[in-house]
């Protein structure tokens, strides 16, 4: 007689049999796997160029990369003032941008969520999403005009200053025009503001989706318990959003070092010391200088740092909240 302690052992059929059984699923997966290998993994073979001297002449002469360089590109990297400056700037710009992005998008999403009128809500959402669809070149042109200190370097003639300077002068906040995009003290704040203007609206989408998934029962119960709007937000909405915030934060952390376009179109010789980032430096070396080996080394270094950041953040999230996303 069998007892309840007797285990029923189900033996799995061999892998080959199982694969044959699900052969059509495997067949359907082939295109995805092939594309994944082709566009994500095959290009990774290019990492080897980081350990070589590889310039345009190596391609045109057909001789290929010179691998005798070894780790030479990395040694050069850490002794190059432009790289260390750009690395520092990347970390500073990206860190604060990430902080502002997280705070602003959550706050704006909460505010949009509080709008009761459906038409008004959609209108606000549309207006906030629009800047995301403008190219960085257009955005840079708009803000260069808005933030212009005018054509008179002495500041005496204010007839050609941009809108922001005109308003500040009118309000008496400044006594002479400020060239926000050519002064080292104002370039970064201006960049953060431009970033938020362009991307905050778009960033709220994922939070609004998460907000719509919070059970209304929780708010109903809190209301019965006497919780006002603020307490409902603090004790129900934010804790419910925390998973989403965490996921978005970690995903954004992976991209933290990928700042390029927004800096490239807004930086200039006067603010290079606070604005040059790894990607713009790589562009100069790789595209303009045709030094592909060195540029690949910079890219590889950047990827390794990003990997550490993501796994580190995931580890911290697991320690604090008990789970991460990796």
């Amino acid at each position: 007689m069998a007892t309840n302690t007797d285990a029923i052992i189900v033996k799995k059929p061999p892998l080959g049999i199982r694969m044959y059984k699900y052969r059509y699923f495997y067949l359907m997966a082939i295109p995805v796997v092939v594309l994944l290998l082709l566009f994500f993994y095959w290009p990774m073979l290019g990492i080897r160029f980081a350990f070589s001297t590889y310039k345009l002449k190596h391609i045109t002469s057909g001789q290929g990369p010179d691998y005798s360089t070894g780790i030479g590109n990395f040694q050069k990297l850490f002794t190059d003032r432009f790289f260390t400056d750009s690395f520092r700037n990347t970390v500073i710009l990206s860190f604060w941008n990430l902080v502002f992005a997280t705070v602003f998008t959550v706050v704006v999403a909460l505010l949009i969520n509080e709008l009761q009128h459906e038409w008004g809500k959609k209108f606000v959402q549309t207006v906030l999403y629009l800047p995301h669809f403008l190219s960085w070149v257009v955005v840079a042109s708009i803000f260069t005009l808005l933030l212009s200190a005018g054509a008179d370097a002495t500041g005496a003639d204010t007839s050609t200053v941009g809108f922001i300077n005109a308003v500040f002068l009118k309000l008496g906040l400044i006594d002479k025009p400020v060239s926000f995009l050519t002064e080292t003290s104002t370039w970064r704040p201006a960049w953060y503001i431009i970033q938020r203007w362009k991307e905050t609206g778009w960033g709220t989408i994922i939070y609004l989706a998460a907000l719509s998934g919070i059970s209304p029962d929780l708010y109903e119960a809190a209301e019965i318990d006497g919780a006002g709007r603020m307490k409902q937000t603090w004790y129900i909405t934010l804790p419910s959003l925390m998973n989403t915030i965490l996921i978005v934060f970690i995903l954004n952390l992976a991209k933290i070092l990928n700042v390029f376009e927004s800096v490239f179109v807004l930086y200039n010789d006067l603010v290079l010391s606070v604005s040059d980032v790894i990607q713009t430096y790589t562009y100069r070396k790789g595209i303009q200088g045709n030094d592909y080996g060195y540029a690949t080394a910079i890219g590889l270094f950047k990827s390794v740092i990003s990997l550490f950041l993501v796994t580190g953040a995931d580890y911290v999230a697991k320690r604090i909240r008990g789970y991460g996303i990796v």
Partner: protein
Amino acid sequence: MKKNLLIRLTSLGLAVVTAMGMTACNGGGSTGGAGSAGNEEYSKPESIKMTFDTCMTFENGLQDVCDEYQNKTGIKLELEKPDHNKYYEKITLAFASGTPSDVIEMGSTYYPENANNGALWDMTNAWETTEAPAKAIIDASYVDALKIDGVLYGFPTVAGNGTVTYVRQDWLDSMGIKMPETYDEFIEMLRAFKGRGSGTIPLTAAGLLNNGETPYDIYLREFYQDAIPDFYQKEDGTWVDGFSEPAMEQALTRLHDAFAEGLIDGEIVTNKTSTCRDKVNAGLVGCFNYWAGMWCAKLEDATTGTDPNAKFAAMPIIKEAGHYTERVPTALVITNNCANPRGVFEDLIMYSHDGGEGQMLFTHGVLDKHYVDNGDGTCTALPYYEDPTKLCEKSFYAPELSISEWNDPIALDPRVEESLKVFRDNRTFASVPVVSDVISENLSNLNVVKGEVAANVLHGNISVQEGMEKYNKDAGKYVEAILADLNS
């Protein structure tokens, strides 16, 4: 069973689609024509792939020019015209990926670099041995200007041209000022322009060092004068760094002083050429250094929209500056990717300078589409497809900058001729920039330091002396490496 069949068919379909996609990715168009027969003999190419920047747009009938070329020669011309701002990025990536076109338009900054990298076909022998009628009418000095150590890697499309300082003649006339001849008179003129009232920009320019393209001092000759912000060879043959010389200190001082006085556009560091033109066209600018030739008429015509009295005149170079600079001509290079380079040289390059139908096609476009024949030996340009208010200026080659002696049936605007005359009477020719591996490796960082120093001195963030100290400190190792290489 039906469901099973559906799954099978779907899977099979997806697999087939993927396989087709892969095949499509792998396919490549053929370039060049029949096999090359070396430099002495050649066969006519079947098709030529060309990448060009400074030509008319497809919207204005560029494809019609290509079709007409095929009608006349039997050669298919496949043209690529990347976005102007990304042109050299696209070219560089094409070389890097081993897929450059057969023929590429290439400016003087990139031409020696690619020649040095062995990416370009040596056309010296082709030029020397060609029997094309073009050879008799081409000004060989423009061809020689592109030779590197006696080797020709590219053929000039048009004269290199250069920039000349345009001044608002109507402002001078209204204030009773004569065209300046010295630096002091030039500064006095700018002061007088500034005194015209609010909104006036005495002088504008797009950047201080020509955005890192040679010659670096082309736009602000009145301020640079004898300073050369680049490496140059002295009479004894040794190379020196012009940026670290006393002449450069004096140039930076002049720039700083004029800027501090409000005589130079406060936005010069962030200006692009398009923003400068907008300011000029708005009637705000008194003095603007820009390309000689067609731009004189274009600036004036655009400005009369806001100021009907606007009149521009090209200023002869002031005494202290000595000369304007004619750039090395823009080259049409044949890449080593081209299967039939000699054929392309003869049937495209020589044909386009033949002083006849080829020259007409590559200069003015297609008969009855871009110009009409008046029947009296002259022709008249037709309006652009896109903008009927403007007449077609060129298809590929600017007519006023032709390197051939030919009877162009479309007469030039007298303003264009006048501005070119002023420029050519005051010019010296730039030579092809020297390149080497060491220069290529260090130049991008060096140019960044130069830009930083010049901009910060101009704005008064640092003094001229501090600027030079910063330059020597930050750029020292790059300068030393380049000089050691040049002088070795």
